[in-house]
């Protein structure tokens, strides 16, 4: 059945009648529409033209044109290069950029009790496509006894941490910047951390020793977006800034189960990569 009260098609359907959607090129659609004047008298043909092209895009699974025309091309570019000549500022700070980060960097302590024996996770969007050469963190207060800090990269799985990409660890019994250059997969074999620009991942951190505190440079929990649903609207202001494992763990897991993760408040370990 044709459009209600429509006049008979004298251009769109006659010119395209022997083509099926799979074989209809956009150039052909353009050719049919190019000579149509934009006026009320042509409204039926304009509708048909849009209908045919939408059907063509649907069949070919091609939505780029529609998204561009609808304003979907807005695509902010995150900082991804040193912009000062000769500058040493060449680190991408994973917890510093939109949409998940902020620039309020301050010392944060991983608890000196068993309640801190967990893996803490925050999401980030990779600012560029990169194979990570260096992961840099800063220890501001050293562990009082033997302890290694644990760090890991995970894929994103529908807005939650997915599977392990790679992990590393470092002695945190001294302060200063730690530059980590070697990464392991879940089996303990050497691996690379390959990130794709514009893709969401998760960064995880923790420790390997029971109840040993250390402090690190991290972004303030009070100024971060929420990383999970809340149980009620009257939640505490700083309750949902990281995810952490519910069960205690002193090792980096290969993946997580949603039932073993909970939201928590803790400054996100500042992680710079290049």
């Amino acid at each position, binding site marked *: 059945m044709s459009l209600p009260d429509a006049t008979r098609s004298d251009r769109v359907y006659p010119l395209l009648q022997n083509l099926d959607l799979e074989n209809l090129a956009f150039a052909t659609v353009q050719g049919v529409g190019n000579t149509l004047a934009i006026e009320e008298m042509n409204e039926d043909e304009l509708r048909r033209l849009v209908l045919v092209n939408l059907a063509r895009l649907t069949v070919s699974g091609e939505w780029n044109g529609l998204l561009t025309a609808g304003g979907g091309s807005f695509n902010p570019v995150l900082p991804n290069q040193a912009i000062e000549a000769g500058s040493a500022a060449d680190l991408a700070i994973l917890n510093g950029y939109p949409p998940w980060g902020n620039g309020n960097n301050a*010392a944060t302590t991983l608890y000196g009790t068993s309640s801190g024996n967990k893996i803490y996770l925050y999401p980030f969007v990779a600012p560029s496509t990169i194979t990570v050469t260096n992961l840099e963190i*800063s220890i501001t*207060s050293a562990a009082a006894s033997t302890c290694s800090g644990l760090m890991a990269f995970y894929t994103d799985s529908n807005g939650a941490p997915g599977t392990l990409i790679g992990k590393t660890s*470092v002695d945190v019994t001294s302060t200063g910047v730690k530059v980590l*250059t*070697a990464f392991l997969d879940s089996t303990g074999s050497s691996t690379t951390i390959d990130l794709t620009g514009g893709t969401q991942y998760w960064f995880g951190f923790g420790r390997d020793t029971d109840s040993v505190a250390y*402090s690190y440079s991290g972004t303030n929990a009070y100024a971060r977006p929420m990383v999970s649903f809340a149980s009620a609207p009257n939640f505490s202001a700083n309750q949902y800034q990281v995810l952490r494992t519910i069960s205690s763990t002193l090792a980096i897991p290969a993946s997580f189960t949603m039932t073993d993760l909970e939201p928590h408040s803790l400054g996100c370990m500042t992680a710079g990569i290049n």
Partner: protein
Amino acid sequence: MHTLISRTREVWGAEGLIESTQSDVTWDYVKAIRLEWLDRTDKFYVADRWDLFSTSKKGKLNAFRQALRDITEHPDANTAADNMPLAEEWFMDA
């Protein structure tokens, strides 16, 4: 106690520590850290908060801030960075 500036830079590889060096810092960086911590600890001097502190805590806070103010008396930025006062754990609450 928290180190405000550590110039130590360690590079770690698969076999462990590869190298440990001391980075140079600038006066601009030292002053930025000093200003950040003076700003952060300003909040402790609001009367209702200040009045709750013990004499010991008040003394530690005053000494910390005075050491920050005096930091420019060091001959160069690296020395100043190495002599930055340590921040008490409870300063983090600011």
